[in-house]
């Protein structure tokens, strides 16, 4: 188990390194020059060259990459070309917002999704099942940014009940205690609802399928034969065994959820890593793009690893097989 874990950690590290390398060379090979964007069209060639030397952009690509990697590993993430702030500060304020949004929606999605899927799986083929299937398939098909816009239309413009932009109100700094928390929750409501409404159906569809699979196995018949009630069989025997693949799915769905979060952050102006990434890519802000990519890849890899460990803990057979 421990050896397998080490191996996974190493591969995870290799993946992050690979993503970072790929990003670096894609960024620098693509057309578009951050120095020209920074200094504007009136800059003279001498000014451009001086700025390039100052930023170290005139050296050979592999040299630049090695230098960046060395500094990054030592914790020096550089300075944002566009904003002039240290990259660590830019990312440092952004990633808690993304983790809060993605983490909460993951939790809610799976609690709601498992509940719906369990009801469907226990009564597969019934009218309830069909009706819930129609709902989940439709919700699962909704593009996040569009659902977000529709929620904004209904709850912000028509009902005037919830704020549509940002993570806190303009007066947030003057609020204390409960009022501050309420303000944050109100800002969280719409982006969280958007991600959860799309995430929960995916989990529900998977749990339903897994439960129907497990229900066909012989040990379920044994459980029924020894006189357990249908509810006992459904929860203790079928659901318990159906949850193992669900945990693996949780890890696999992280990249998709993160992708969804990027679009949703753009819609709600949520100050997270996704929005930082989008803005930095458009401004050719190399240091920020590199750091944001590394952080998001690391978050996804860490999530996958956590899901694997959790799955091994739920089903001891997995750990033994891997080791």
């Amino acid at each position: 188990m421990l050896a397998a874990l080490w191996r996974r950690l190493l591969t995870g590290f290799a993946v992050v390194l690979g993503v970072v390398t790929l990003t670096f060379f894609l960024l620098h090979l693509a057309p578009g020059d951050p120095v020209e964007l920074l200094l504007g069209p009136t800059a003279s060639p001498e000014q451009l060259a001086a700025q390039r030397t100052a930023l170290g952009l005139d050296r050979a690509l592999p040299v630049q990459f090695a230098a960046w990697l060395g500094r990054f590993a030592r914790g020096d993430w550089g300075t944002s070309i566009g904003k002039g702030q240290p990259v660590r500060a830019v990312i440092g304020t952004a990633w808690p917002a993304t983790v809060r949004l993605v983490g909460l929606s993951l939790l809610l999605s799976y609690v709601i999704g498992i509940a719906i899927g369990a009801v469907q799986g226990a009564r597969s083929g019934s009218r309830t099942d069909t009706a819930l299937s129609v709902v989940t398939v439709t919700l699962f098909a909704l593009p996040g940014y569009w659902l977000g816009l529709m929620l904004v239309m209904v709850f912000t413009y028509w009902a005037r009940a919830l704020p549509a932009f940002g993570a806190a109100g303009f007066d947030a700094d003057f609020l204390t205690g409960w009022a501050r928390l309420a303000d944050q929750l109100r800002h969280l409501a719409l982006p969280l609802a958007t991600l959860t409404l799309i995430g929960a159906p995916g989990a529900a569809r998977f749990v339903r399928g897994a439960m129907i699979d497990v229900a066909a196995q012989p040990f379920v018949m044994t459980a029924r034969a020894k006189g357990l009630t249908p509810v006992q069989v459904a929860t203790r025997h079928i659901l318990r065994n159906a949850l193992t693949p669900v945990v693996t799915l949780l890890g696999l769905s992280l990249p998709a959820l993160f992708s969804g979060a990027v679009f949703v952050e753009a819609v709600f102006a949520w100050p997270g890593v996704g929005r930082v990434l989008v803005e930095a890519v458009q401004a050719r802000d190399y240091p920020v793009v590199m750091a944001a990519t590394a952080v998001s890849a690391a978050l996804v890899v860490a999530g996958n690893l956590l899901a694997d460990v959790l799955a091994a803990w739920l089903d001891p057979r997995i750990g033994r097989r891997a080791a």
Partner: protein
Amino acid sequence: MRRLLRDRRGAFGALVLVAVIACATLAPLVTSGDPNRQHDIVATRFLPPLAIDAFGAFHPLGTDRFGRDVWTRLVYGARISMGVGVLAVLLSVTLGLAVGAVAGYWRGPVPVALLGVTDFALAVPRVVLLLLLAALWRPSTALVVIVLGLTGWMSVARLVHGEVRALAARPFVAGAAALGARRLRILVRHILPNALTPVIVAAALGVGNAISLEAGLSYLGLGVQPPTPSWGNMIASGRDTLVNAPWVATAPGLALVLVVVACTLLGDAVRDALEPGAVTRPPAT
């Protein structure tokens, strides 16, 4: 095929897709013409659905802020959105088939390397790659197709790899080899046709996914560029007029959801019709 259409999900999915494709191909017949036509902007902009403008033209879904007919743009946008979705999936399925088949059929360093690349690419957050590729080059429709194709082949490759490995151990493959067929011929004529079922299902789901990602990129301004209508850039342009003209963003979104649902249902129905024992799973993005 008959089993597919008797399945209500399959029939619904097929019906929706046929209707959308028919509308898109026959666009000049079901609309009033040019999707970019503007009359008098002030007189014809933001007309609500079912309105008739001052020039006597009927707008079943209203008009946008430039006075362009939303229904016409929706139908012409279907050409772009469906086209991008289908082409992108064709590209990713071709790539995935090639990588999966080679990795599953031969032994040695090349297949190992291919599998490594596949797993690596699967672990990369797709949207990060999409953003980088789409933002770094000048946005165009062709670029969107290539970018979506290049970031979507991994799951197909994994599927094909598994199928090919399982099929290669079956007796009929040994039989073909005993008859003197060459390895490439065995792969192409005997193994791949038997491995296609999950690929078809993945492709059906992939089209829906690709259309929705195209819309996402266009929404961020990195996809199909206006004035060419695509559902994504229509949603994006409707975003700013959500208060006074909600139909501009609503109509393409509903069309998008309808098509994605149709693809999902059709994919599910195809799987159930071809391999009744399989499990229903959501697609991994």
